[in-house]
């Protein structure tokens, strides 16, 4: 070792740096060749795997994004139908709106409202009991006119009784509203 250092110092002394260059070359060869290239290749392989996963994720997200753009566009195009659907199945039972619409419809069909009551039946529907007075002859037309209501309505029961020239009708209707999501 002493000889080796002595030789190096000698070469320095006489101005011949070839050994030094050789040593630097060997050092850099080992450093870059073994540590640099090897770890560089390993990193490159790992990064390529990450890149492949990122490309797949990017494609997936791009597909979802364009899907959402299509959905938004469809909702925008169908806005008037969505509004009608929202009116048919509102977020709340909106009984006051229904009662107002129903009273107008009944009046136009020749019936008057005697009594109006509601019963909660399920989480997305409500039962409505309505007592009406009016000529039973007009009943078929009135039931047809019920379809004109903006609300989604199911006629559960119709009971018309004619007594002493007075006709009373009890209607049991089911109204629907937006289902409350289960928590």
């Amino acid at each position, binding site marked *: 070792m002493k000889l080796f250092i002595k030789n190096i110092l000698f070469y320095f002394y006489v101005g011949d740096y070839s050994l030094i260059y050789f040593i630097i070359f060997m050092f*850099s*060869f080992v450093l*870059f*060749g073994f540590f*640099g*290239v090897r770890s*560089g*290749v390993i*990193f*490159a392989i790992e*990064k*390529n795997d*990450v*890149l492949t996963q*990122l*490309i797949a*994720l*990017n494609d997936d*997200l*791009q597909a*979802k*994004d364009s899907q*959402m*753009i299509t*959905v*938004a566009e469809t*909702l925008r195009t169908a806005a008037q139908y*969505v509004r009608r*659907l*929202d009116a*048919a*199945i509102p977020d709340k039972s909106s009984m006051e709106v229904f009662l107002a619409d129903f009273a107008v419809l009944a009046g136009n069909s020749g019936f008057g409202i005697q009594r109006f009551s509601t019963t909660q039946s399920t989480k*997305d529907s409500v039962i409505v009991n309505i007592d009406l007075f009016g000529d*039973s*002859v007009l*009943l*078929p*037309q009135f*039931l*047809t006119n*019920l*379809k004109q209501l903006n609300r*989604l309505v*199911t*006629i*559960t*029961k*119709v*009971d*018309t*009784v*004619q*007594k002493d020239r007075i006709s009373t009708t009890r209607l049991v209707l089911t109204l*629907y509203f*937006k*289902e409350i999501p289960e928590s």
Partner: protein
Amino acid sequence: MVDIVFLVVLGVNITLNQRIEGYQMGISSLVNSIEGFKDTNAKAAEVTRKIALYKKVTSEQQDISGKTTFLIAHLPNDVLLREYVFENGAYTLTLEMNSPIKMAQLIANYFLNKNVKEIVISAASLDAYQSKYTIVFRVSFVK
């Protein structure tokens, strides 16, 4: 030679880093964009649920107004409709008439409609003082 290989590997690493960074930015932008559609997604889900409910309810509904029109329109003039009930898919009529033959004619008329599945007379009575027959019967339709 080793240096060239090292430089090439280094270049590949730098390129990969740049591409990864590019994709990360792109993904971040896409995630933000999709998050912006959160309300749209919720609305679409709500509309889908409402359409399903609408379809279910309307598919189960009967043409009550049409059947009521049919049942009442076929009543003879001198037959009085005392009570008309629709419940659980069946139509029950209480009629008052001065001759039972009218009931037979009415049943025959109803059966001309192929959708009338069954007519069940559940009660019949005679008011001898007034000579009036009261008949209660239930009409069921095919659908």
